[in-house]
């Protein structure tokens, strides 16, 4: 404890040297922190922008396939697939929405999209029952519909004398980021029912009694709508789907790969810069602490002469190094915070959404502190070794 007290007294008396070392630390750390913060902020903003739209992770099959449930079922177990739904034939994609109201009735045509449990377009945990739908915001506005309203999905086939009318409840209005234009999402069973109607099957529970019995129907799916679990998984899932099903697909793979590649390149550039800066910092601190220990040999020799054991004397430069590091880190993070606030004022409008220009996580901050302390401790070992080897008799004889 006495050594620690003495080391602190000496450190704060020798303010100029302390300030030099703190300046060295801050001079290296602040630019690195800002680089890391900006990289995090800009990159996370781009990633966030991509992820805010579920369509980024969407893979659609192209062309007219004839997939069976037996072919689709194994895909549901792929770990990189977050959600998957079959698609019916595209010529039956449009339905009319009929909403009776006091002033008359509203009727609009809309694109009918399949959904199911786990669909990223729906709020987490929401599952639409067969008599529930989710509407695009445009459609909801145009038809003055809100959640809880009961309407009808209406479709008409040229070959059939009667309309198919499916009563449904509006369960959810989708956000703009998920659905633009006029679209309605319903459980896949609803789309399957519409396709069966067009294929001339009887649907007696909806009043369509003419046609072939539904039990004879062997469903075939024209394609799939798949959502990858992550941006990194999008490309591999797309490749695997094409390879295993033998069909073409479309996805925003190139755009996602470009952003991910940018992240990797930024990481690489930051890593190289950090490695060079760290090497320079370690060398500067090593020689700085060592020369300081040499400069203080007289004091260390006097303390040794008075009875402080060499092992305690070795603590002297280590304590000073740790305190220097702590002060250097505190100053560096304070300057970083100032720079981040300034950057937020100057550049925030250039980023999508509310994303901050710079961002540093607690784990990152903790890792940086631990790394700097480790570098400082390693650098201080040389001066500790020097302090341990001070020969009081010889040093005092030399007049230090």
């Amino acid at each position, binding site marked *: 404890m006495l050594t620690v007290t003495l080391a602190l007294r000496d450190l704060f008396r020798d303010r100029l040297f302390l300030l030099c070392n703190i300046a060295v630390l801050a001079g290296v750390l602040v630019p690195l922190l800002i680089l890391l913060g900006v990289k995090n902020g800009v990159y996370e903003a781009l990633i966030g922008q991509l992820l805010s739209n579920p369509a980024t992770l969407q893979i659609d099959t192209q062309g007219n396939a004839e997939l069976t449930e037996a072919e689709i079922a194994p895909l549901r177990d792929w770990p990189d697939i977050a959600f998957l739904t079959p698609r019916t034939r595209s010529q039956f994609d449009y339905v009319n929405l009929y909403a009776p109201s006091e002033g008359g009735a509203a009727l609009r045509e809309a694109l009918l999209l399949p959904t199911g449990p786990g669909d990223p377009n729906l709020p987490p945990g929401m599952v639409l029952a067969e008599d529930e739908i989710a509407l695009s915001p445009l459609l909801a506005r145009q038809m003055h519909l809100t959640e809880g309203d009961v309407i009808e999905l209406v479709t008409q086939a040229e070959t059939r004398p009667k309309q198919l009318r499916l009563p449904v409840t509006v369960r959810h209005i989708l956000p703009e980021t998920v659905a633009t234009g006029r679209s309605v999402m319903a459980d896949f069973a609803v789309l399957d029912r519409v396709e069966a109607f067009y294929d001339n099957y009887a649907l007696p529970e909806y009043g369509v009694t003419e046609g072939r019995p539904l039990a004879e129907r062997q469903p075939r799916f024209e394609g799939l709508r798949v959502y990858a679990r992550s941006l990194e998984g999008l490309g591999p899932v797309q490749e695997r789907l094409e390879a295993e099903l033998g069909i073409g697909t479309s996805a925003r793979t190139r755009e996602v790969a470009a952003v991910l590649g940018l992240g990797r390149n930024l990481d690489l550039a930051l890593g190289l810069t950090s490695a060079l800066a760290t090497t320079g910092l370690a060398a500067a601190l090593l020689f700085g602490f060592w020369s300081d220990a040499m400069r203080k040999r007289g*004091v260390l020799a006097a303390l040794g*002469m008075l009875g402080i*054991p*060499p092992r305690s004397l070795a603590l002297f430069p280590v304590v000073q190094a740790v305190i220097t590091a702590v002060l250097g880190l505190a100053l560096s993070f304070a300057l970083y915070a100032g720079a981040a606030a300034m950057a937020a004022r100057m550049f925030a409008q250039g980023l999508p959404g509310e994303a901050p220009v710079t961002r540093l996580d607690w784990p990152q901050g903790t890792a940086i502190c631990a790394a700097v302390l480790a570098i400082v401790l390693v650098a201080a070992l040389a001066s500790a070794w020097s302090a*341990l080897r001070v020969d*009081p*008799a010889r040093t005092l004889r030399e007049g230090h």
Partner: protein
Amino acid sequence: MPNQRLRIGQLTTALADGDRRFRLAVEGLELAPGAVLAVTGASGSGKTLFLELLGLLRAPEAGGDYALLDAAGREVTNLGALWARGARSSALAATRGGVFGFVPQSGALIPFLSVVQNVALTQRVTGREDAGRVHLLLDRLGLTAVKGLRPDALSIGQRQRVSIARALAHRPAFVIADEPTAALDQDAAETVMALLIETATIEGVGVILSSHDVDRLDRLALPRLHFVSQMVGPGEIFSTAEMQAC
């Protein structure tokens, strides 16, 4: 700690510096509590080396006798054997700090501590804290007015007096002073020497001091251990000591 005796018998040490080798031997010596011994000799005769040997700052060669005795003459600590644990052993450092007080030529004050903190330092190192004694010594050595100053604000004479106070603060058995007046003018040297001997005598502390000032030693009638060195081979110097009555 005072009232202990030092016993030396056939104690030798050596110092090598490049091709030069300096060897020093002291046949026999016993220092009683409160006694003052002057170490004399020409420059390079081994006075400082002897004081380092005595103060556990320099390792003796094997075979000699160096021990701390109690008032009855019983061996309390074999000081020579402490070196067997290595020069960096805590026991060696603790014994050095506890048994001896040092007044080096340069003063060797700690620059970042005030006068009062410097004086109290030996007490803190040895765990014998006694603020009253620190202030008593400061008062006795005329340092009360400057007790809050740092060493760089003191004259050389004041620094030596602080060094003396520090050497006595923890009640060591012996004070080792290496030419404590070498850097002082006549008046200051007289004052410092008188204070050292007077304070040590009052405290019952043994004092071993080296000096070139034979006239002053004569006036103070101090017994002397006189060192004489001679070349005994190429680059090899051998120094021996003999007691001289005052």
